[in-house]
């Protein structure tokens, strides 16, 4: 039986790639420290494989073929795209996959009774997946099972489905005949807007009330409140790309809804950054 030893959430703000460099600016030190903490926890707990729940930003998956849930079954993945290299200064990279665990989560011949995953054998991971890995496992030396949840091209999965996803990942790890130690890493936002009238307004959140409430869901271990608080209307009112916050509900559900050991919306020059961590060792 494999062991889900931790769950976590980090931001994936690609603007960090140019700005969070040594010496780390004072306002970004909190962000850098929390990434380091989560990476150190992975190493301390001996993580062998990462299941990463994130959202592709209309790079790999567009409206011509847009899955709600898709899992990667490739042996390896290329990281980032030409436009992300140009816009964010990111670097191309290679990430190893983990076919056996991906098969076990999705169902190898027949889909599971919880999530009807689409599967992909050829997937270029965008910053939503690469940034969390680059800051927690800079050598990309731990294989990854990527799971994309559509949070950008409506219709989107309801928040309840993210809880189902999280429980399903936890149960899949428990039932996997392996001695592997698995981390669930979710990639998300606090209140954030890109492309609307509130984008890049400077330091601080476009919706501090949402951020305060959202942190409390994970700090207090209140899965029902998280689901109730993540209606499409409320989340989008917090900022037009905030729906990626809902990815973090899958981590809370995978940890049986118990309070996080770390729950913080870290402030910086950007919209606040989600950092949540559950140790399950």
């Amino acid at each position: 039986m494999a062991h889900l030893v931790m769950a976590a959430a980090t931001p994936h703000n690609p603007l960090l790639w140019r700005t969070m460099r040594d010496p780390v600016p004072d306002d970004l030190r909190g962000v850098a420290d929390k990434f380091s903490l989560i990476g150190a926890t992975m190493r301390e707990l001996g993580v062998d494989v990462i299941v990463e729940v994130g959202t592709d930003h209309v790079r790999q998956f567009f409206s011509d073929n847009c899955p709600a849930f898709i899992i990667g079954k490739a042996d390896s993945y290329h990281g980032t795209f030409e436009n992300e290299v140009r816009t964010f200064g990111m670097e191309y990279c290679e990430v190893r996959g983990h076919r056996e665990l991906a098969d076990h989560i999705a169902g190898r011949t027949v889909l599971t009774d919880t999530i009807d995953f689409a599967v992909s054998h050829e997937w270029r991971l965008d910053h939503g997946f690469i940034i969390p890995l680059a800051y927690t496992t800079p050598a990309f030396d731990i294989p990854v099972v990527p799971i994309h949840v559509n949070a950008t091209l409506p219709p989107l999965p309801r928040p309840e489905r993210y809880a189902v996803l999280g429980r399903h990942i936890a149960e899949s790890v428990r039932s996997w005949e392996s001695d592997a130690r698995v981390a669930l890493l979710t990639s998300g936002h606090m209140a954030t807007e890109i492309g609307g009238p509130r984008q890049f307004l400077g330091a601080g959140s476009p919706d501090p009330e949402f951020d305060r409430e959202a942190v409390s869901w994970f700090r207090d271990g209140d899965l029902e409140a998280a689901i109730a608080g993540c209606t499409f209307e409320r989340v989008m009112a917090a900022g037009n790309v905030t729906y990626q916050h809902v990815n973090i509900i899958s981590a809370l559900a995978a940890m049986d809804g118990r309070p996080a050991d770390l729950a913080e919306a870290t402030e910086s020059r950007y919209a606040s950054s989600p950092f949540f961590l559950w140790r399950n060792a």
Partner: protein
Amino acid sequence: MSKYMMNKLMRAIEMSDRSVESYLRDTEAFVDGWLAGGAGPDAVADDRVLTDEERSAFIARDEGELYRLGAHPYLLWHFIEAVWVHQVDWPDLNERYRAAVRPHGYPDYVA
């Protein structure tokens, strides 16, 4: 309105350095070339259509109008950033973009 097609064109330009350069070199020719470049009536898909309003907004590189017409905000910002960032300082571009879209609130961008 053909929001999907606006998104498709923005994405086709923004994801490729070469397409950004071509669009900037001769914007109208690029847009019309793209519209003519679909796979044709025998193909299952890839028909390319923009309304006159949408075509004009692409030729004018008008972020406010594209936003009003329902372009996807995330794609729109990155498209506009790619197209203008070498001509307008980023803080000024960001300010200009916000001012252009603000009067339109939050249009329905669901394609």
